[in-house]
């Protein structure tokens, strides 16, 4: 067999993250269409005031996307030691902001619960909890992704490790974009 020492052409994590994003987009499109159908199915849709902390959470999440990009630019080789240090610090800030967002979402759920609005209170509340809980779970997946890929970059800042961090970053930014979309939907429908 004639063969060469060249491997296939691209780094799969770059494709993989976009395929994953396609699947998540499709599933949230399904939830959204389910919401529209459910809203028109019966006259029991109740409007309620969204907890204001959601907007602060949004700011935290968007800020985390910015710090993540700043971190990534400092970690691309050739990396000087001070740049690597500030890069790692910015990554840590990104993760803290991400976890703050999740904590803020928990606070929003508690605020609604204090008003007597639970998962099964009505269809609008059901969709509010479904959207926000599932988004938070996906975001926690992003936290794991960032921790794992940044640890890999720290061990060996090779092309593959940097590409994996890049893919985790794309996912993180997508989580931000998805949240902005969900917040818009919630603001309109709730």
């Amino acid at each position, binding site marked *: 067999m004639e063969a*060469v020492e*060249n*491997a*296939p052409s691209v*780094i799969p994590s770059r494709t993989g993250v976009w395929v*994953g994003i396609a699947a998540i987009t499709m599933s949230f499109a399904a939830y959204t269409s389910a919401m529209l159908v459910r809203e028109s199915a019966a006259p029991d849709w109740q409007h309620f005031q969204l907890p204001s902390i959601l907007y602060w959470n949004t700011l935290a999440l968007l800020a985390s996307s910015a710090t993540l990009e700043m971190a990534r630019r400092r970690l691309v080789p050739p990396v000087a030691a001070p740049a690597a240090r500030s890069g790692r610090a910015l990554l840590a800030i990104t993760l803290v902001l991400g976890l703050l967002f999740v904590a803020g979402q928990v606070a929003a759920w508690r605020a609604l619960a204090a008003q007597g609005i639970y*998962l099964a209170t009505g269809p609008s509340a059901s969709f509010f909890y479904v959207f926000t809980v599932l988004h938070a779970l996906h975001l926690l997946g992003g936290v794991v992704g960032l921790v794992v890929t940044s640890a890999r970059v720290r061990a060996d800042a090779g092309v593959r490790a940097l590409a994996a961090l890049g893919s985790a970053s794309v996912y993180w930014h997508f989580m931000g974009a998805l949240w902005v979309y969900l917040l818009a939907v919630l603001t309109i429908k709730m």
Partner: protein
Amino acid sequence: MDQPSAPKPAGPRETAALIHKLKIEPPQSFIRKHIFSLDHKVIGKQYLDLALVAVLTGMVLSWLMRFHLAFPKSPVPLLSTFAPKGAADGVMTPEMYLAIMTMHGTIMVFFVLTTAPFAGFGNYVLPIQVGAEDMAFPRFNMMSFWVTFTAFLVLVAAFFVPEGPPISGWTAYAPLSAVGKDAGPGLGTGQTLWAISIALFCVGQLLGALNFIATTLDLRTKGMTLARMPFSTWAWFITSVIGLIAFSVLFPACVLLILDRVAGTSFFIPAGLVISDKLQPHSGGSPMLWQHLFWFFGHPEVYIAILPGFGIVSHILPAFLRKPLLGPRVLIACMAAIGLLSYTVWGHHMFLSGMNPVSATLFSVPTLIITIPATISTLLWIGSIYGARIRLTTASLFCLGFVSVFVSGGISGFFLAQPSIDTYLHGTYFVVGHFHFVMGVAAMFGIFAGTYFWFPKMYGRMMNETIGKWHFFLTFIGVYCIFMPMHYLGLAGNVRRYSAFTDDYMQGSLPLHRFITYAALFTGGAQLLFLFNLVYSRLKGPAAPQNPWEATSLEWTIPSPPPVNNFGDVHPVVYHGPNEYGMKGSTGDFVMQNSPEKMEGE
């Protein structure tokens, strides 16, 4: 036909990829080697073994149903031991019949027709056919299998909970599936287990689809252009794109169903529903919403089951016809068109759901249009036989059988696609005959063809051809005896989902039901030949050469069975398409994909 071309010099993308090169060390421990393996070949075999266990379970369930339909008052030996509530005197209750029907459908559609042709063979063969060492994400691949396996265990656990499995069918229509145990046996814990199982299954298949897509797009070896990919790889790729979208919608549907069941929400349960004299504490939900979400997945699922069969048959047939398949690019376009159109036809399952009749017409038109690419594919397979020097092996017989049952089942689809005719036929055995032929049996024939074809590569031993041919002919005759009469039963108005026809106007159908039952037992018995052949050949079959079928694709350029890293630390270079049969090459009447030789006329 592709022109052979010399590989281009390595560019920057290739340089980056050098770093990507996988370093695959053979695993040492038993657990890493055979259980939690990252090797796509082991994972493929695990999927196939899971499908084998599932298909045997599903087949026994179908025998129980068929026995009851033919002899509704006769006890089944030992049944009362296994189901003291559902069959106290050995004769199953109507509820138990529905529970068995639900589990048969769920197990067969998800854990056989999806896992074997797509996840099983796809996992084993796709990376080798594109010239890769493994899947793009081996850890996700391993997770994909174990999540699917867990889903199977969760589903089977429904047999062992006090009220047994759910009775709402494999489609789990709401509100029956959503309201809980008040609605009947199995609709408590059993139905919740069903929903959790299917949600897990979605996760497993999404991880699989992610791997298939990334591997096909990114890990193709040098010279393996999209046009040179084998038909089977094309089919798995298209199927994974369909699956990615379909399972991304079924998962949310299951999440909402689980919430309706355990958290008191009202996504699918309407207001004012009284069940067992109890007003349900729900309001405003839409049962139609479940049907839309389910069938948006459910119809593409039909193609998830059958398109790998298209690919397997298109890949295998030319090797035994010893000539190229007609219209290779047309065939790929047809498969892609089927994939695309599969998302426009889901409403044809809902003609009788109370949907707006205008919508019914809108869904009817693409349903008829989708028959065009399916028909073209069929004509390409049949047309390819003209002038062939056919080698009638078991694998090629199953390919021809695939075409036959696909056509037989497909033709009845023309009738069902029209709302006015479907109104009469929808609730009858006509539909049962139709989908078993076109989706069940055709996909099974694809699985059998794939097994007889790739077994030598997978296990390094040949299967017994004499037993294989007996298996084919008995199965071929058997399935026609089972499913063809169902069409006539349906035309005569024989309703489906009923457990017995002893006390009503359908009594006259009993002799035909008995004939179908005998045929089902006969066909099931014929599968013992297959099982024996599998086990015996795995242990005692003659050693398989590297390329026993004189086929062209890359899996036949490496030893049988292949080493852990498939190509032994090097990457093959591809010069030809997979369809180069009937050519004059140094290897005979075919040219291997990695052969640098030029063919006549080039």
